[in-house]
């Protein structure tokens, strides 16, 4: 299990339910490695600043995470974590590898506000 203070997406069914029932969602699919942990930390801090966005994580190695691993927006991705941004159930942005808090904020401001 990911040792973060974020809510976790556990199943593909839950993933579908979350993006369908929440207008703005950010999900980081990773492990507890050096490229992933800073993203979770940034998300934990951004939760209060962006109350209209749902911030969650998902274990990259879980079989259920195929919904992110195999997403067409992740074609060519070869660096953890895979981070997805959803607006009204659709992917509006996907990033690979580490992103700093400022970079994440730019994406949120551009796509999920």
């Amino acid at each position, binding site marked *: 299990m990911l*040792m973060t203070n974020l809510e976790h997406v556990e199943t593909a069914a839950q993933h579908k339910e979350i993006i369908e029932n929440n207008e703005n969602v950010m999900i980081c699919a990773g*492990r*507890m*490695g*050096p*490229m*992933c*942990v*800073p993203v979770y*930390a*940034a998300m934990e*801090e951004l939760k209060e600043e962006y109350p209209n966005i749902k911030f969650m994580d998902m274990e990259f190695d879980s079989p259920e995470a195929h919904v992110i691993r195999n997403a067409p927006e992740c*074609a*060519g*991705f*070869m*660096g*953890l974590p895979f981070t997805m941004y959803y607006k009204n159930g659709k992917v509006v942005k996907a*990033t*690979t*590898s580490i992103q*700093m*808090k*400022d970079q994440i904020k730019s994406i949120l401001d551009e796509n999920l506000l």
Partner: protein
Amino acid sequence: MENSYDVIVLGGGAAGLTAGIYLSRAKVKTLILNEGMVGGQMVLTYEIANYPGIELTSGYQLSMTMKKQAESFGCDIKQNINISEVDLSGEIKKVVVGEKTYTSKAIIIASGGRSRNLGVQGEGTFKGRGISYCATCDGDFYTGQDIIVVGGGNSALEEAVSLTKYAKSVTIIHQFDHFQAFEHAIEVAKANEKISFIMKSSIDGFYGDEKVKYVNIKNLETEEVYKKEIDGVFIFIGYAANSDKFKNQVAINNYGEIISDNNMSTNTKGVFVAGDVREKKIRQITTAVSDGAIAAVNTIEYIQK
């Protein structure tokens, strides 16, 4: 006053957190300011097996324990902030973060180092799409593929060996004609059948579509540039000291490292330094912890004079 402290520690890695622990435990009002996630380079380390007293841990876990310890003694810690200005000139030091100005009687600079980039075409574009800086994180994406490792120190050679668990072939590219790594690491890499070497060379650019397809390699002696098709590149070319904010305020050597004496004092009154940003030979968590403790004790003596 709310933003006024006895000591401000600039940096929340091993050195900064240790200084925070020692200062706060001595009832010194302390603030740690960290521009990224607290833990610094420790967080970049998946597995730590040589920290005395702890058989095996992760960099993340060790960071969080140090943070918790510092906070338990009353240390204030702010992370993921941007420090726009630092003024070390007066008796009272000032640090500007957004609209706030924090002041203190003394400062410990523990700003550490950052991974070096090659700074060539395509490096930003293909980050995570064939370029990686973490073998443990991304190695399995390259199972059965041909990869390059750039670098000549311990990290480059050790990670190249670990990547042979996944990759079909690993080519180490290094700018010099010899390695800077420990002899044992060099021997292990040279004995590995999957590893080959291109010396006195560097990567000139990354090219591809949705991921890296090939790189241009430049022979630094002949200046010949040629193409090499590749599935991925791992870059381990060392760290640069984070000392830009302190230029012209403390003495800095040609490598950007802050100069200090054995008491961690810089040439500026009331300014101390600890950890990887300091001019020193050995950069380990243990030496950063030592620096942090020494800096803290000497800072306490300074502010009590």
